[in-house]
């Protein structure tokens, strides 16, 4: 079944989640960095924030689905050509990705809901505030949100460089298997 992940492949759900989240997160980063520079009289002053909040909550939801999905699927085996250190680095990089994304999503949610207001998601529905914060905490959460996002950017760059390295230098299927569930890890490459 190309729906689920297996030893040999990433399934279509994982691939879909990977790419939709990749584009949304890149968009959110750019939007976030841009919107904090806007001044009061910019027509996007409120709108940019609204988009950032809405998309951010969508990513939060997708992240939950993805974590649940990963925990309930078999991880594809590392390619035979991978070095031990690469396998380890990849593992920790992926864990760090999820930790940072969780921190960014939660802190983002806490900024907007710090005073009890809910977050509006695309005029569709509201996510209520659950925790109200003191002013100092609200500012701290804002700092965490920003710093974690820049750390995510660094990790993203490493991730892209690694993917390109595997594709162009190692000429293996690391990158393309995240595009096409029909590309299978050959049995001789299966495990170490």
């Amino acid at each position, binding site marked *: 079944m190309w729906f689920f992940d297996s030893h040999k492949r990433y399934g279509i759900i994982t691939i879909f989640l990977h790419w939709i989240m990749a584009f949304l997160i890149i968009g959110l980063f750019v939007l976030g960095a841009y919107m904090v520079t806007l001044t009061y*009289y910019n027509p996007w002053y409120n709108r940019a924030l609204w988009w950032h909040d809405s998309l951010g909550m969508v990513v939060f939801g997708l992240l939950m689905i993805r974590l649940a999905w990963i925990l309930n699927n078999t991880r594809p085996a590392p390619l035979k050509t991978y070095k031990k250190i690469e396998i380890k680095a990849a593992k920790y990089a992926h864990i760090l990705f999820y930790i940072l994304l969780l921190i960014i999503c939660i802190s983002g949610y806490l900024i907007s809901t710090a*005073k009890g*207001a809910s977050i509006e998601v695309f005029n569709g529905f509201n996510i209520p505030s659950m925790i109200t914060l003191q*002013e100092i905490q609200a500012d701290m959460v804002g700092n965490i949100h920003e710093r974690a996002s820049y750390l995510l950017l660094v990790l993203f760059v490493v991730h892209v460089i690694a993917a390109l390295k595997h594709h162009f230098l190692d000429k293996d299927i690391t990158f393309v298997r995240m595009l096409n569930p029909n590309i299978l890890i050959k049995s001789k490459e299966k495990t170490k």
Partner: protein
Amino acid sequence: MKRIYTALFVLSLAATNVMADDYIIDKKGMHASINFKISHLGFSWLRGRFNDFDGHFSYDKAQPENAKIEVTIKTSSIDSNHAKRDKHLRGQDFLNTDKYPEAKFISHSFVQEKDGSGILKGDFTLRGVTKPILIEVKYIGEGKDPWGGYRIGFEGTAKIALADYGIVYDLGSTAKELELFFEIEGIRQTKQ
């Protein structure tokens, strides 16, 4: 004998000078507030307040010109009932509360009319800038409270120009000035 009378007279003068009652602002019971009002684009008034402040004053009905007051405001306690706006107001564009955690008013002179209204002059320090301001004061009332204390209350209004205190973020031509409202209730301190 004459000398003794003179001495007594001087003493009595000194005595009347220290006769002014000392009050602390009832922060514990929060029978005091510091609110502000600023124009939003010229269409409406935005109101907010500072939740955390403290102060004391001395006042004697017989000699109101000797009245003195000192109020310290914790700037990070600004509250306009909107988490993201409050975060912005605490930031560098406005109050810069990390660097300037306190705003302060210290009175220099007070002139009270027979109807209880008066003009209080003093120095207001905000964002590290100290400027003289003028507070229009109205006497509200005084007397014994039901719990064995003695209280007195005033209200005051003042206008400040944001640019005077280095706040130059563009909020539009109608929002160059901000109006402050003080509701002050003091509890008389028992004399030592």
